[in-house]
Protein backbone atom coordinates (compact mmCIF):
# COMPACT_ATOMS: atom_id res chain seq x y z
CA UNK A 1 0.00 0.00 0.00
CA UNK A 2 1.30 3.46 -0.94
CA UNK A 3 1.39 5.93 1.88
CA UNK A 4 1.27 9.67 1.24
CA UNK A 5 4.26 11.76 2.20
CA UNK A 6 4.25 13.52 5.53
CA UNK A 7 2.30 16.79 5.23
CA UNK A 8 2.70 19.98 7.29
CA UNK A 9 -0.50 19.02 9.12
CA UNK A 10 1.04 15.71 10.13
CA UNK A 11 4.21 17.45 11.30
CA UNK A 12 2.18 19.90 13.35
CA UNK A 13 0.17 17.12 14.97
CA UNK A 14 3.27 15.07 15.75
CA UNK A 15 4.92 18.06 17.41
CA UNK A 16 1.80 18.91 19.36
CA UNK A 17 1.43 15.33 20.60
CA UNK A 18 5.08 15.03 21.59
CA UNK A 19 5.03 18.35 23.38
CA UNK A 20 1.85 17.40 25.21
CA UNK A 21 3.46 14.15 26.40
CA UNK A 22 6.66 15.92 27.45
CA UNK A 23 4.79 18.57 29.38
CA UNK A 24 2.40 16.10 30.97
CA UNK A 25 5.34 14.05 32.25
CA UNK A 26 7.29 17.07 33.48
CA UNK A 27 4.22 18.29 35.35
CA UNK A 28 3.90 14.87 36.98
CA UNK A 29 7.51 14.95 38.10
CA UNK A 30 6.95 18.43 39.47
CA UNK A 31 3.87 17.23 41.42
CA UNK A 32 6.02 14.42 42.76
CA UNK A 33 8.66 16.83 43.98
CA UNK A 34 5.93 18.76 45.75
CA UNK A 35 4.74 15.57 47.43
CA UNK A 36 1.29 15.70 45.83
CA UNK A 37 1.52 12.28 44.19
CA UNK A 38 1.12 9.00 46.01
CA UNK A 39 3.04 5.89 44.94
CA UNK A 40 5.27 6.06 41.91
CA UNK A 41 5.17 6.98 38.25
CA UNK A 42 7.03 5.93 35.14
CA UNK A 43 7.60 8.75 32.71
CA UNK A 44 8.51 8.49 29.04
CA UNK A 45 10.42 11.74 28.67
CA UNK A 46 12.68 11.24 25.64
CA UNK A 47 10.52 8.48 24.14
CA UNK A 48 7.70 10.76 22.93
CA UNK A 49 8.33 10.25 19.21
CA UNK A 50 7.50 6.54 19.38
CA UNK A 51 4.11 7.18 20.97
CA UNK A 52 3.20 10.12 18.75
CA UNK A 53 4.26 8.49 15.49
CA UNK A 54 2.80 5.04 16.16
CA UNK A 55 -0.54 6.07 17.61
CA UNK A 56 -1.07 8.44 14.68
CA UNK A 57 -1.95 5.35 12.63
CA UNK A 58 -4.28 3.78 15.17
CA UNK A 59 -7.93 3.42 14.21
CA UNK A 60 -10.64 3.54 16.88
CA UNK A 61 -11.42 -0.12 16.31
CA UNK A 62 -7.82 -1.17 16.97
CA UNK A 63 -6.95 -2.39 20.45
CA UNK A 64 -3.83 -1.02 22.12
CA UNK A 65 -2.24 -2.62 25.16
CA UNK A 66 0.47 -0.72 26.95
CA UNK A 67 2.59 -1.15 30.03
CA UNK A 68 3.82 0.67 33.13
CA UNK A 69 5.19 3.45 30.91
CA UNK A 70 1.92 4.21 29.17
CA UNK A 71 1.22 7.95 29.55
CA UNK A 72 2.66 8.79 26.15
CA UNK A 73 0.75 6.04 24.39
CA UNK A 74 -2.50 7.10 26.04
CA UNK A 75 -2.07 10.81 25.29
CA UNK A 76 -0.97 10.09 21.71
CA UNK A 77 -4.33 8.41 21.16
CA UNK A 78 -5.90 11.79 21.89
CA UNK A 79 -7.51 10.64 25.14
CA UNK A 80 -8.22 13.30 27.78
CA UNK A 81 -5.26 14.39 29.90
CA UNK A 82 -7.64 15.29 32.71
CA UNK A 83 -8.67 11.66 33.22
CA UNK A 84 -5.06 10.53 33.39
CA UNK A 85 -4.03 13.29 35.77
CA UNK A 86 -7.02 12.39 37.94
CA UNK A 87 -6.13 8.71 37.87
CA UNK A 88 -2.57 9.36 38.94
CA UNK A 89 -3.79 11.75 41.65
CA UNK A 90 -6.12 9.04 43.00
CA UNK A 91 -9.35 10.81 42.11
CA UNK A 92 -12.78 9.32 41.51
CA UNK A 93 -12.85 11.02 38.10
CA UNK A 94 -9.74 9.15 36.94
CA UNK A 95 -9.64 6.87 33.90
CA UNK A 96 -10.58 3.95 36.15
CA UNK A 97 -11.72 5.96 39.19
CA UNK A 98 -8.41 5.63 41.00
CA UNK A 99 -8.57 1.85 41.10
CA UNK A 100 -5.65 1.18 38.83
CA UNK A 101 -3.30 4.12 38.80
CA UNK A 102 -1.69 4.79 35.46
CA UNK A 103 -0.17 1.30 35.23
CA UNK A 104 -3.64 -0.21 35.07
CA UNK A 105 -6.02 1.75 32.91
CA UNK A 106 -8.72 1.03 30.39
CA UNK A 107 -10.18 3.69 28.13
CA UNK A 108 -12.14 2.79 25.03
CA UNK A 109 -9.90 0.22 23.32
CA UNK A 110 -6.78 1.21 25.24
CA UNK A 111 -5.43 -0.80 28.16
CA UNK A 112 -2.35 -0.94 30.33
CA UNK A 113 -1.14 -3.49 32.84
CA UNK A 114 1.80 -3.44 35.22
CA UNK A 115 2.89 -7.06 34.81
CA UNK A 116 5.68 -7.25 32.27
CA UNK A 117 4.72 -9.24 29.19
CA UNK A 118 1.56 -10.67 30.73
CA UNK A 119 -0.66 -8.95 28.22
CA UNK A 120 1.13 -10.26 25.14
CA UNK A 121 -0.78 -13.59 25.30
CA UNK A 122 -3.92 -11.58 26.03
CA UNK A 123 -3.27 -9.49 22.92
CA UNK A 124 -2.94 -12.66 20.86
CA UNK A 125 -6.42 -13.60 22.09
CA UNK A 126 -7.75 -10.15 21.21
CA UNK A 127 -6.16 -10.42 17.76
CA UNK A 128 -7.69 -13.89 17.35
CA UNK A 129 -11.08 -12.35 18.13
CA UNK A 130 -10.42 -9.76 15.42
CA UNK A 131 -9.51 -12.58 13.04
CA UNK A 132 -12.78 -14.38 13.85
CA UNK A 133 -14.71 -11.19 13.09
CA UNK A 134 -12.98 -10.87 9.70
CA UNK A 135 -12.74 -7.07 9.89
CA UNK A 136 -9.50 -5.11 9.50
CA UNK A 137 -8.96 -4.13 13.14
CA UNK A 138 -5.57 -4.98 14.63
CA UNK A 139 -4.05 -5.29 18.09
CA UNK A 140 -1.01 -3.28 19.14
CA UNK A 141 1.09 -4.27 22.15
CA UNK A 142 3.90 -2.13 23.53
CA UNK A 143 6.72 -3.85 25.36
CA UNK A 144 10.22 -2.82 26.36
CA UNK A 145 13.56 -4.50 25.73
CA UNK A 146 13.50 -5.80 29.31
CA UNK A 147 10.15 -7.53 28.74
CA UNK A 148 11.95 -10.10 26.59
CA UNK A 149 12.98 -11.77 29.82
CA UNK A 150 9.41 -12.94 30.41
CA UNK A 151 8.39 -16.42 29.25
CA UNK A 152 4.83 -15.36 28.52
CA UNK A 153 6.16 -13.33 25.57
CA UNK A 154 7.51 -16.46 23.88
CA UNK A 155 4.35 -18.48 24.45
CA UNK A 156 2.45 -15.59 22.92
CA UNK A 157 4.70 -15.10 19.89
CA UNK A 158 4.55 -18.77 19.05
CA UNK A 159 0.77 -18.69 19.19
CA UNK A 160 0.55 -15.40 17.26
CA UNK A 161 2.56 -17.00 14.47
CA UNK A 162 0.64 -20.29 14.50
CA UNK A 163 -2.66 -18.40 14.40
CA UNK A 164 -1.43 -15.67 12.03
CA UNK A 165 -2.96 -13.17 14.41
CA UNK A 166 -3.01 -9.47 13.41
CA UNK A 167 -0.69 -8.42 16.23
CA UNK A 168 1.70 -5.50 15.99
CA UNK A 169 4.29 -5.80 18.74
CA UNK A 170 6.15 -2.54 19.28
CA UNK A 171 9.34 -2.93 21.24
CA UNK A 172 10.60 0.30 22.74
CA UNK A 173 14.23 -0.47 23.32
CA UNK A 174 15.50 2.17 25.70
CA UNK A 175 18.50 0.03 26.56
CA UNK A 176 17.61 -0.55 30.18
CA UNK A 177 15.50 -3.06 32.04
CA UNK A 178 14.75 -0.77 34.97
CA UNK A 179 18.39 -0.17 35.98
CA UNK A 180 20.11 -3.03 34.17
CA UNK A 181 21.74 -2.34 30.81
CA UNK A 182 20.39 -4.59 28.08
CA UNK A 183 23.77 -6.17 27.27
CA UNK A 184 24.02 -7.63 30.75
CA UNK A 185 20.86 -9.70 30.59
CA UNK A 186 19.88 -10.26 26.97
CA UNK A 187 21.58 -12.93 24.88
CA UNK A 188 21.42 -12.64 21.11
CA UNK A 189 19.08 -10.20 19.43
CA UNK A 190 15.40 -9.45 19.19
CA UNK A 191 15.50 -10.01 15.43
CA UNK A 192 16.84 -13.54 15.91
CA UNK A 193 14.09 -14.23 18.41
CA UNK A 194 11.47 -12.98 15.95
CA UNK A 195 12.99 -15.14 13.21
CA UNK A 196 12.72 -18.20 15.45
CA UNK A 197 8.95 -17.78 15.43
CA UNK A 198 8.84 -16.99 11.72
CA UNK A 199 7.55 -13.50 12.47
CA UNK A 200 8.66 -10.53 10.37
CA UNK A 201 10.82 -8.06 12.26
CA UNK A 202 11.73 -4.48 11.43
CA UNK A 203 14.10 -2.22 13.29
CA UNK A 204 14.87 1.47 13.41
CA UNK A 205 17.24 3.63 15.40
CA UNK A 206 15.60 6.89 14.48
CA UNK A 207 14.27 9.22 17.11
CA UNK A 208 12.81 11.48 14.46
CA UNK A 209 9.02 11.39 14.58
CA UNK A 210 8.67 12.01 10.83
CA UNK A 211 10.84 8.98 10.02
CA UNK A 212 8.98 7.00 12.64
CA UNK A 213 5.61 8.10 11.28
CA UNK A 214 6.58 6.50 8.00
CA UNK A 215 8.04 3.42 9.67
CA UNK A 216 4.90 2.81 11.73
CA UNK A 217 2.55 3.69 8.87
CA UNK A 218 3.79 0.89 6.67
CA UNK A 219 3.78 -1.49 9.66
CA UNK A 220 0.15 -0.78 10.51
CA UNK A 221 -0.74 -1.20 6.83
CA UNK A 222 1.04 -4.55 6.68
CA UNK A 223 -0.64 -6.03 9.76
CA UNK A 224 -4.02 -4.59 8.79
CA UNK A 225 -3.80 -5.83 5.22
CA UNK A 226 -2.05 -9.17 5.52
CA UNK A 227 -3.49 -10.24 8.88
CA UNK A 228 -0.24 -11.48 10.33
CA UNK A 229 1.98 -10.58 13.27
CA UNK A 230 4.84 -8.12 12.98
CA UNK A 231 7.51 -7.12 15.47
CA UNK A 232 8.91 -3.59 15.41
CA UNK A 233 12.04 -2.75 17.33
CA UNK A 234 12.59 0.94 17.97
CA UNK A 235 15.68 2.24 19.69
CA UNK A 236 14.67 5.05 21.99
CA UNK A 237 16.02 6.98 24.94
CA UNK A 238 14.58 7.37 28.38
CA UNK A 239 15.85 10.71 29.67
CA UNK A 240 14.45 10.36 33.17
CA UNK A 241 14.50 7.70 35.86
CA UNK A 242 12.78 4.30 35.47
CA UNK A 243 10.30 5.52 38.03
CA UNK A 244 10.59 8.56 40.23
CA UNK A 245 14.11 9.17 41.51
CA UNK A 246 15.89 5.90 40.82
CA UNK A 247 18.42 6.79 38.16
CA UNK A 248 22.01 5.63 38.69
CA UNK A 249 23.16 6.29 35.16
CA UNK A 250 26.18 8.46 34.49
CA UNK A 251 24.98 12.09 34.19
CA UNK A 252 27.24 12.45 31.16
CA UNK A 253 25.25 9.76 29.32
CA UNK A 254 22.03 11.56 30.18
CA UNK A 255 23.38 14.90 29.07
CA UNK A 256 24.45 13.42 25.75
CA UNK A 257 20.95 11.99 25.30
CA UNK A 258 19.32 15.34 25.99
CA UNK A 259 21.63 17.03 23.52
CA UNK A 260 21.60 14.50 20.71
CA UNK A 261 18.45 12.41 20.97
CA UNK A 262 15.67 14.78 21.90
CA UNK A 263 12.68 14.15 19.60
CA UNK A 264 11.34 17.65 20.20
CA UNK A 265 14.62 19.31 19.19
CA UNK A 266 14.44 17.30 15.95
CA UNK A 267 11.47 19.43 14.94
CA UNK A 268 13.22 22.77 15.32
CA UNK A 269 14.22 22.86 11.65
CA UNK A 270 10.72 21.78 10.58
CA UNK A 271 8.55 24.35 12.36
CA UNK A 272 9.19 28.04 12.94
CA UNK A 273 9.91 29.15 16.48
CA UNK A 274 6.78 31.28 16.54
CA UNK A 275 4.61 28.42 15.34
CA UNK A 276 6.09 26.09 17.91
CA UNK A 277 5.42 28.64 20.64
CA UNK A 278 1.78 28.93 19.61
CA UNK A 279 1.37 25.13 19.69
CA UNK A 280 3.10 25.00 23.08
CA UNK A 281 0.88 27.73 24.45
CA UNK A 282 -2.25 25.82 23.43
CA UNK A 283 -0.94 22.62 25.00
CA UNK A 284 0.04 24.40 28.23
CA UNK A 285 -3.40 25.86 28.59
CA UNK A 286 -5.04 22.47 27.82
CA UNK A 287 -2.87 20.76 30.45
CA UNK A 288 -3.40 23.48 33.05
CA UNK A 289 -7.17 23.14 32.73
CA UNK A 290 -6.85 19.36 32.93
CA UNK A 291 -4.62 19.51 35.97
CA UNK A 292 -6.89 22.00 37.72
CA UNK A 293 -10.00 19.89 37.12
CA UNK A 294 -8.24 16.73 38.28
CA UNK A 295 -6.88 18.47 41.36
CA UNK A 296 -10.33 19.59 42.42
CA UNK A 297 -12.08 16.27 41.90
CA UNK A 298 -13.08 14.12 44.89
CA UNK A 299 -10.81 11.34 46.09
CA UNK A 300 -11.49 7.76 45.04
CA UNK A 301 -13.68 5.87 47.50
CA UNK A 302 -14.43 2.19 47.90
CA UNK A 303 -17.95 1.22 47.02
CA UNK A 304 -18.80 -1.88 48.97
CA UNK A 305 -20.98 -4.03 46.78
CA UNK A 306 -20.79 -7.39 48.50
Amino acid sequence: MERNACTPQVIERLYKTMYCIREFEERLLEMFSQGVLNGTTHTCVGQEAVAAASMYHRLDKDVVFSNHRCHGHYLACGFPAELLFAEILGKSTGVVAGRGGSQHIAHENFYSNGIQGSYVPICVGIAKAQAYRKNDAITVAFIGDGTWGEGAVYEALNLASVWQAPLLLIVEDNGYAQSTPKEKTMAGTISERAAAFNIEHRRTESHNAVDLWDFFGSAFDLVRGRRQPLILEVTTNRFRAHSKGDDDRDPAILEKMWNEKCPLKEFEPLLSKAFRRSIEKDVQSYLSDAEFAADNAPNAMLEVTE
Partner: protein
Amino acid sequence: MKYLESIRAGIDHLLESDDRTIVLGEDIVDPYGGAFKVTKGLSTKYPDRVLSMPISESAIVGASIGLAMEGFKPICEIMFGDFITLATDQIVNSGSKFNWMYNDKVMIPLVIRTAVGGYRGYGPTHSQSLESMFLNVPGLDVISPTIFGDPGRLLAIAHESTKPALFIEHKVSYPKKLASGRSKSAGILSVTQTLDNFPEYRVLPTTDQKIDLVVIAYGEVASMVGEIAEELFLDEEICVMLIVPTLLNQSPSESTVNLVRSCGKALIVEEGHEQFGWASHMSRMVTDQAFESLTKPISVLGAKQVPIGNASSLEEQILPSRALIKKQIATLIGY
Protein backbone atom coordinates in the same frame (compact mmCIF):
# COMPACT_ATOMS: atom_id res chain seq x y z
CA MET B 1 -25.55 -40.29 32.74
CA LYS B 2 -21.97 -40.16 33.94
CA TYR B 3 -20.11 -37.13 35.32
CA LEU B 4 -17.79 -36.90 32.29
CA GLU B 5 -20.62 -37.33 29.78
CA SER B 6 -22.55 -34.57 31.48
CA ILE B 7 -19.62 -32.15 31.12
CA ARG B 8 -19.06 -33.13 27.51
CA ALA B 9 -22.75 -32.69 26.71
CA GLY B 10 -22.64 -29.35 28.52
CA ILE B 11 -19.73 -28.08 26.40
CA ASP B 12 -21.41 -29.42 23.25
CA HIS B 13 -24.59 -27.57 24.12
CA LEU B 14 -22.70 -24.31 24.77
CA LEU B 15 -20.86 -24.60 21.45
CA GLU B 16 -24.11 -25.31 19.66
CA SER B 17 -26.27 -22.68 21.30
CA ASP B 18 -23.77 -19.82 21.49
CA ASP B 19 -21.33 -19.15 18.67
CA ARG B 20 -19.28 -16.96 21.00
CA THR B 21 -18.16 -20.14 22.76
CA ILE B 22 -14.54 -21.05 21.99
CA VAL B 23 -12.91 -24.14 23.48
CA LEU B 24 -9.13 -24.14 23.83
CA GLY B 25 -6.68 -26.59 25.33
CA GLU B 26 -3.83 -29.04 24.90
CA ASP B 27 -4.57 -32.25 23.00
CA ILE B 28 -8.30 -31.58 23.03
CA VAL B 29 -9.02 -32.18 19.36
CA ASP B 30 -10.01 -35.47 17.75
CA PRO B 31 -9.08 -38.24 17.47
CA TYR B 32 -7.41 -37.82 20.90
CA GLY B 33 -10.21 -35.70 22.38
CA GLY B 34 -8.34 -34.55 25.49
CA ALA B 35 -6.23 -36.33 28.10
CA PHE B 36 -9.42 -37.37 29.89
CA LYS B 37 -11.53 -37.48 26.69
CA VAL B 38 -13.90 -34.78 27.90
CA THR B 39 -13.90 -32.98 24.53
CA LYS B 40 -14.00 -36.09 22.34
CA GLY B 41 -15.99 -35.48 19.18
CA LEU B 42 -16.32 -31.74 19.68
CA SER B 43 -13.55 -30.61 17.32
CA THR B 44 -15.11 -32.70 14.57
CA LYS B 45 -18.45 -30.97 15.12
CA TYR B 46 -17.05 -27.45 15.62
CA PRO B 47 -13.65 -27.38 13.90
CA ASP B 48 -13.30 -23.57 13.98
CA ARG B 49 -14.11 -23.18 17.65
CA VAL B 50 -12.34 -26.10 19.30
CA LEU B 51 -8.68 -25.14 19.17
CA SER B 52 -5.64 -27.27 19.78
CA MET B 53 -3.13 -25.32 21.82
CA PRO B 54 0.63 -25.54 22.33
CA ILE B 55 1.90 -26.67 25.74
CA SER B 56 1.70 -23.09 26.95
CA GLU B 57 -0.69 -22.70 29.86
CA SER B 58 0.03 -18.98 30.20
CA ALA B 59 -0.87 -18.46 26.54
CA ILE B 60 -3.95 -20.68 26.84
CA VAL B 61 -5.38 -18.64 29.69
CA GLY B 62 -3.98 -15.34 28.38
CA ALA B 63 -5.46 -15.79 24.91
CA SER B 64 -8.74 -16.84 26.53
CA ILE B 65 -8.78 -13.61 28.55
CA GLY B 66 -8.20 -11.66 25.33
CA LEU B 67 -11.05 -13.46 23.59
CA ALA B 68 -13.29 -12.79 26.59
CA MET B 69 -12.41 -9.08 26.54
CA GLU B 70 -13.61 -9.01 22.94
CA GLY B 71 -16.99 -10.54 23.73
CA PHE B 72 -16.27 -14.22 23.13
CA LYS B 73 -16.99 -16.83 25.81
CA PRO B 74 -13.95 -19.05 26.04
CA ILE B 75 -13.84 -22.34 27.89
CA CYS B 76 -10.24 -23.38 28.22
CA GLU B 77 -8.85 -26.62 29.53
CA ILE B 78 -5.75 -26.99 31.69
CA MET B 79 -4.95 -30.67 31.41
CA PHE B 80 -4.03 -31.28 35.05
CA GLY B 81 -5.01 -29.01 37.91
CA ASP B 82 -1.37 -28.96 38.96
CA PHE B 83 -0.48 -27.10 35.74
CA ILE B 84 -2.65 -24.18 36.78
CA THR B 85 0.45 -22.77 38.47
CA LEU B 86 1.83 -22.18 34.97
CA ALA B 87 -1.12 -19.88 34.26
CA THR B 88 -1.37 -18.35 37.71
CA ASP B 89 -0.12 -14.92 36.71
CA GLN B 90 -2.78 -14.72 34.01
CA ILE B 91 -5.48 -15.77 36.46
CA VAL B 92 -4.37 -13.69 39.44
CA ASN B 93 -2.98 -10.53 37.84
CA SER B 94 -5.16 -10.26 34.77
CA GLY B 95 -8.26 -12.45 34.48
CA SER B 96 -9.58 -11.93 37.98
CA LYS B 97 -8.46 -8.28 38.27
CA PHE B 98 -9.49 -6.69 35.00
CA ASN B 99 -13.16 -6.16 35.82
CA TRP B 100 -12.53 -4.32 39.07
CA MET B 101 -9.25 -2.58 38.32
CA TYR B 102 -10.59 -1.24 35.03
CA ASN B 103 -13.57 0.15 36.94
CA ASP B 104 -16.08 -2.35 35.51
CA LYS B 105 -15.28 -1.34 31.93
CA VAL B 106 -14.46 -4.90 30.90
CA MET B 107 -15.89 -8.28 31.75
CA ILE B 108 -14.07 -11.58 31.56
CA PRO B 109 -16.63 -14.34 30.99
CA LEU B 110 -14.06 -17.13 31.08
CA VAL B 111 -14.25 -20.69 32.33
CA ILE B 112 -10.99 -22.49 33.07
CA ARG B 113 -11.71 -26.21 33.31
CA THR B 114 -9.13 -28.43 34.91
CA ALA B 115 -8.87 -32.00 36.16
CA VAL B 116 -7.81 -32.08 39.78
CA GLY B 117 -7.25 -34.52 42.56
CA GLY B 118 -5.50 -37.68 43.60
CA TYR B 119 -6.37 -41.32 44.40
CA ARG B 120 -5.08 -42.25 40.94
CA GLY B 121 -1.37 -42.80 41.61
CA TYR B 122 -0.16 -39.94 39.42
CA GLY B 123 2.32 -38.61 41.95
CA PRO B 124 3.19 -35.26 43.49
CA THR B 125 2.69 -33.02 40.41
CA HIS B 126 -0.37 -34.67 38.86
CA SER B 127 -2.60 -35.24 41.89
CA GLN B 128 -3.12 -31.96 43.66
CA SER B 129 -6.20 -30.00 44.62
CA LEU B 130 -4.76 -26.50 44.56
CA GLU B 131 -8.06 -24.61 44.64
CA SER B 132 -7.51 -23.22 48.13
CA MET B 133 -4.70 -21.13 46.65
CA PHE B 134 -7.27 -19.41 44.45
CA LEU B 135 -9.98 -18.93 47.06
CA ASN B 136 -8.53 -15.72 48.39
CA VAL B 137 -8.15 -14.16 44.96
CA PRO B 138 -10.93 -11.57 44.60
CA GLY B 139 -12.77 -11.53 41.28
CA LEU B 140 -12.53 -15.26 40.67
CA ASP B 141 -15.12 -17.98 41.20
CA VAL B 142 -13.98 -21.47 42.12
CA ILE B 143 -16.59 -24.01 41.11
CA SER B 144 -16.73 -27.70 41.91
CA PRO B 145 -19.09 -30.02 40.06
CA THR B 146 -20.38 -33.06 41.91
CA ILE B 147 -21.95 -36.42 41.15
CA PHE B 148 -24.88 -35.24 43.30
CA GLY B 149 -25.72 -32.53 40.78
CA ASP B 150 -25.56 -31.87 37.06
CA PRO B 151 -21.97 -30.98 36.08
CA GLY B 152 -22.93 -29.95 32.55
CA ARG B 153 -25.61 -27.59 33.83
CA LEU B 154 -23.14 -26.17 36.37
CA LEU B 155 -20.71 -25.50 33.52
CA ALA B 156 -23.47 -23.60 31.72
CA ILE B 157 -24.02 -21.46 34.83
CA ALA B 158 -20.29 -20.67 34.92
CA HIS B 159 -20.34 -19.90 31.19
CA GLU B 160 -23.27 -17.54 31.64
CA SER B 161 -21.48 -15.61 34.37
CA THR B 162 -19.49 -12.50 33.48
CA LYS B 163 -16.85 -13.41 36.05
CA PRO B 164 -13.89 -15.72 35.39
CA ALA B 165 -14.20 -19.14 36.96
CA LEU B 166 -11.94 -22.00 37.83
CA PHE B 167 -13.99 -25.15 37.21
CA ILE B 168 -12.38 -28.04 39.04
CA GLU B 169 -13.36 -31.45 37.71
CA HIS B 170 -12.22 -34.53 39.59
CA LYS B 171 -10.43 -37.31 37.73
CA VAL B 172 -11.98 -40.02 39.88
CA SER B 173 -15.47 -38.61 39.36
CA TYR B 174 -15.27 -38.72 35.54
CA PRO B 175 -16.50 -42.33 35.08
CA LYS B 176 -19.01 -42.17 37.95
CA LYS B 177 -22.74 -42.23 37.46
CA LEU B 178 -24.58 -39.13 38.58
CA ALA B 179 -26.75 -39.62 41.66
CA SER B 180 -29.79 -38.38 39.78
CA GLY B 181 -29.38 -41.23 37.31
CA ARG B 182 -29.58 -43.96 39.95
CA SER B 183 -32.84 -45.76 40.32
CA LYS B 184 -34.87 -44.61 43.32
CA SER B 185 -35.20 -48.05 44.83
CA ALA B 186 -31.45 -48.71 44.79
CA GLY B 187 -30.58 -45.37 46.34
CA ILE B 188 -30.64 -45.09 50.11
CA LEU B 189 -29.81 -41.42 49.98
CA SER B 190 -32.05 -38.68 48.71
CA VAL B 191 -30.61 -35.54 47.13
CA THR B 192 -32.23 -32.13 47.36
CA GLN B 193 -30.99 -28.93 45.81
CA THR B 194 -31.02 -25.60 47.53
CA LEU B 195 -29.87 -22.24 46.11
CA ASP B 196 -30.66 -21.43 42.51
CA ASN B 197 -27.59 -20.02 40.84
CA PHE B 198 -24.70 -22.10 42.05
CA PRO B 199 -26.60 -24.96 43.63
CA GLU B 200 -25.87 -26.58 46.96
CA TYR B 201 -26.93 -30.17 47.51
CA ARG B 202 -28.16 -31.89 50.66
CA VAL B 203 -27.68 -35.61 50.71
CA LEU B 204 -29.49 -37.55 53.42
CA PRO B 205 -30.73 -41.08 54.10
CA THR B 206 -34.41 -41.33 53.33
CA THR B 207 -35.61 -41.32 56.91
CA ASP B 208 -37.27 -39.14 59.57
CA GLN B 209 -34.47 -39.93 61.98
CA LYS B 210 -32.63 -37.14 63.80
CA ILE B 211 -29.40 -36.02 62.10
CA ASP B 212 -26.36 -37.29 64.00
CA LEU B 213 -23.75 -35.24 62.16
CA VAL B 214 -23.52 -32.62 59.43
CA VAL B 215 -20.66 -33.14 56.98
CA ILE B 216 -19.73 -30.42 54.50
CA ALA B 217 -17.60 -31.49 51.55
CA TYR B 218 -17.19 -30.86 47.82
CA GLY B 219 -15.73 -32.72 44.86
CA GLU B 220 -14.66 -36.34 45.08
CA VAL B 221 -14.40 -36.46 48.87
CA ALA B 222 -18.12 -35.58 48.89
CA SER B 223 -18.75 -38.73 46.82
CA MET B 224 -16.77 -40.68 49.41
CA VAL B 225 -18.72 -39.19 52.28
CA GLY B 226 -21.94 -40.11 50.45
CA GLU B 227 -20.86 -43.74 50.26
CA ILE B 228 -19.84 -43.71 53.91
CA ALA B 229 -23.19 -42.15 54.89
CA GLU B 230 -24.98 -44.93 53.03
CA GLU B 231 -22.99 -47.61 54.84
CA LEU B 232 -23.44 -45.98 58.23
CA PHE B 233 -27.15 -45.77 57.76
CA LEU B 234 -27.47 -49.39 56.65
CA ASP B 235 -25.04 -50.85 59.18
CA GLU B 236 -25.40 -48.57 62.20
CA GLU B 237 -28.62 -46.61 61.64
CA ILE B 238 -26.56 -43.46 61.87
CA CYS B 239 -27.91 -40.46 60.02
CA VAL B 240 -25.30 -38.23 58.38
CA MET B 241 -26.41 -35.12 56.52
CA LEU B 242 -23.99 -34.29 53.72
CA ILE B 243 -23.95 -30.75 52.36
CA VAL B 244 -22.21 -30.26 49.01
CA PRO B 245 -21.57 -26.69 47.85
CA THR B 246 -20.60 -26.04 44.22
CA LEU B 247 -19.37 -22.45 44.56
CA LEU B 248 -16.46 -22.63 46.95
CA ASN B 249 -15.57 -18.96 47.36
CA GLN B 250 -18.62 -18.05 49.34
CA SER B 251 -19.71 -18.04 52.94
CA PRO B 252 -21.72 -21.00 54.22
CA SER B 253 -25.37 -20.69 53.26
CA GLU B 254 -27.90 -19.77 55.90
CA SER B 255 -29.47 -23.21 55.66
CA THR B 256 -26.08 -24.85 56.24
CA VAL B 257 -25.54 -22.77 59.37
CA ASN B 258 -29.03 -23.63 60.60
CA LEU B 259 -28.45 -27.33 60.06
CA VAL B 260 -25.19 -27.17 62.01
CA ARG B 261 -26.96 -25.23 64.77
CA SER B 262 -29.67 -27.81 65.16
CA CYS B 263 -27.25 -30.75 64.99
CA GLY B 264 -24.64 -29.12 67.24
CA LYS B 265 -21.66 -30.64 65.46
CA ALA B 266 -20.09 -30.77 62.04
CA LEU B 267 -17.19 -32.17 60.06
CA ILE B 268 -15.75 -30.35 57.07
CA VAL B 269 -13.72 -32.41 54.62
CA GLU B 270 -11.57 -31.37 51.68
CA GLU B 271 -9.02 -33.17 49.55
CA GLY B 272 -6.61 -30.24 49.48
CA HIS B 273 -3.99 -29.72 52.14
CA GLU B 274 -5.69 -29.13 55.44
CA GLN B 275 -3.41 -26.31 56.60
CA PHE B 276 -4.85 -22.88 55.81
CA GLY B 277 -7.34 -24.36 53.37
CA TRP B 278 -11.02 -24.09 52.43
CA ALA B 279 -12.22 -26.37 55.20
CA SER B 280 -10.40 -24.43 57.91
CA HIS B 281 -11.86 -21.15 56.75
CA MET B 282 -15.31 -22.65 56.31
CA SER B 283 -15.10 -23.95 59.86
CA ARG B 284 -14.27 -20.47 61.13
CA MET B 285 -17.20 -18.97 59.26
CA VAL B 286 -19.68 -21.59 60.48
CA THR B 287 -18.34 -21.29 64.02
CA ASP B 288 -18.77 -17.50 63.95
CA GLN B 289 -22.48 -17.94 63.33
CA ALA B 290 -23.30 -21.19 65.10
CA PHE B 291 -20.99 -20.92 68.12
CA GLU B 292 -23.70 -20.87 70.79
CA SER B 293 -25.27 -24.06 69.47
CA LEU B 294 -22.13 -26.13 68.98
CA THR B 295 -21.68 -29.11 71.30
CA LYS B 296 -18.17 -29.73 69.96
CA PRO B 297 -15.66 -27.65 68.01
CA ILE B 298 -16.15 -28.09 64.28
CA SER B 299 -13.81 -30.75 63.00
CA VAL B 300 -11.75 -30.36 59.83
CA LEU B 301 -10.11 -33.00 57.67
CA GLY B 302 -7.87 -32.61 54.62
CA ALA B 303 -4.61 -33.84 53.14
CA LYS B 304 -1.47 -33.91 55.27
CA GLN B 305 1.11 -31.19 54.69
CA VAL B 306 3.38 -33.29 52.47
CA PRO B 307 3.38 -33.73 48.70
CA ILE B 308 1.06 -36.45 47.42
CA GLY B 309 3.18 -39.58 47.08
CA ASN B 310 2.96 -41.78 44.03
CA ALA B 311 2.53 -45.15 45.79
CA SER B 312 -1.07 -45.98 46.61
CA SER B 313 -0.02 -46.73 50.18
CA LEU B 314 1.38 -43.20 50.42
CA GLU B 315 -1.76 -41.68 48.88
CA GLU B 316 -3.79 -43.62 51.43
CA GLN B 317 -1.80 -42.04 54.25
CA ILE B 318 -1.57 -38.53 52.85
CA LEU B 319 -4.99 -37.86 51.31
CA PRO B 320 -8.17 -38.07 53.39
CA SER B 321 -9.00 -41.75 53.04
CA ARG B 322 -12.38 -43.41 53.42
CA ALA B 323 -11.13 -45.10 56.57
CA LEU B 324 -9.95 -41.84 58.07
CA ILE B 325 -13.16 -39.99 57.24
CA LYS B 326 -15.20 -42.83 58.70
CA LYS B 327 -13.09 -42.85 61.85
CA GLN B 328 -13.48 -39.11 62.26
CA ILE B 329 -17.25 -39.39 61.87
CA ALA B 330 -17.33 -42.15 64.49
CA THR B 331 -15.31 -40.06 66.92
CA LEU B 332 -17.60 -37.08 66.51
CA ILE B 333 -20.79 -39.09 66.89
CA GLY B 334 -19.29 -41.27 69.58
CA TYR B 335 -20.40 -44.72 68.54
